[in-house]
């Protein structure tokens, strides 16, 4: 897990697996409100982030607030990491 690669890896997943044009995605832009993210893609994104971060994401955390933007994803994953 390399936090320096986080944004590039997520963008690659959005582009290659979810077919989302990542040029429309900024650090804080809302993927849900802009219609780029839906329930199906959120579930796939959660699976990708589980693999990327090496953690299990419980169902209760698979909600829009945690996956709505690159920043929200990063903040959520960091909140789940054990303190260094």
């Amino acid at each position, binding site marked *: 897990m390399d936090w320096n690669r986080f944004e590039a890896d997520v963008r690659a997943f959005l582009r290659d697996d979810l077919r989302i044009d990542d040029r429309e995605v900024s650090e804080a832009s809302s993927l*849900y409100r802009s219609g780029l993210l839906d329930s199906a893609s959120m579930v796939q994104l959660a699976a990708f982030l589980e693999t990327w971060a090496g953690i299990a994401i419980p169902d209760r955390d698979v909600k829009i607030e945690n996956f709505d933007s690159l920043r929200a994803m990063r903040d959520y994953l960091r909140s789940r990491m054990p303190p260094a």
Partner: protein
Amino acid sequence: MLLGFLALAALAPAYWLLPAGWRPGASMAIGLTGLYWLDPRALVLVLGAATVAFGFATLGPRLALAPRRAILVLALLALAALFVWNKLGAGGHAVLPSQAGLAVLGLSYLVLKIAALLVEAARTPGFSATFTEVLHWLCFLPIYPSGPIEEFDHFRHQQPRVTRARVLGGCERLLFGYSKLLLGSHYLGQWTAPLLADPASASRLELWLGAYAVAARFYLDFSGYSDLAIGVAALYGYEIEENFDWPFLRRNLTQFWQHWHMTLTRFLRTYLFVPVSRLLLRNRVPGPAAILAAQVVSMLFCGLWHGLGWGFVLWGLAQALGLAWVGLGAPRAARHLPPALVRWWRSSRAGYAASSFVTASFFAATAILVALDLRGALAYFAALAASR
């Protein structure tokens, strides 16, 4: 029910005279009194549901996982039985948007709210709630009969704030709500009634317009009641979650459902779609199959929640297939089309308008399945196919 909202609005000025600290208690007292007046059985059910939910929220975290899950499953099964009794108890299912045929008004919403609270209490570490918080949330009268399905956490942390802006905003929502219900929904209902009763004698254009009118009526009816609920709640100082956000202006069925009955869609996503799809994915079911299966489960539930009948089953299946087409089928189909056409469809205003029109037409056509019983709906489709 329309007069009930008006009575609540008329009572609000007396509520404003109370000291701020008394208002939550007064709101709860109005809710409990109103439920008794509406139907004493509703009051008993709300008190019982609040007791069970509070008991589970208090004792559940102290239990080991297995007994906690067993109690949760039993409680959900009891809620399902209560729901079925309510839908069938008064003589069978009704067609939308009629509320006739329900044993106890508002029970469908009560069941979903309690189910959500029980699941959250079971799966959220450190979850706690007081009996008063649960009871007030369940008996809050503006949202009791017809939603929105307000989230417990969103409601319980609110301190009612009666401000000039909020009261005026509430009055505006009431005006919108009554206009939608008394003008839009009522007259569209009158216009579509003969078409639905005798589709064979109508032209193809009339039948298509009739389907659009049925869909528009559903929108005006459901969103009208949501406006009333949000408006009256604002008069009492509470902010209730929005339920509709121009769904017919959305470009595909997925976005349509993200903006139609949004609190129900959130319930379906949170408690059905996400757990079912993730369970299947964890069990190595291929992604598209897992997504499709979860869509079918979620939208079948959605259909049956609206009414227990074959028309609602078919309607739910149709929505699931439509959602699967948007998420799975259309992107694959797009790979076989000229890139310039796909770009135009996705980025131009004309493409957006065409896509919205197709989405609205799909929803309108499927609305016939729940506006009539199944035999009537099939007769409508047969007339549409045979008409000129």
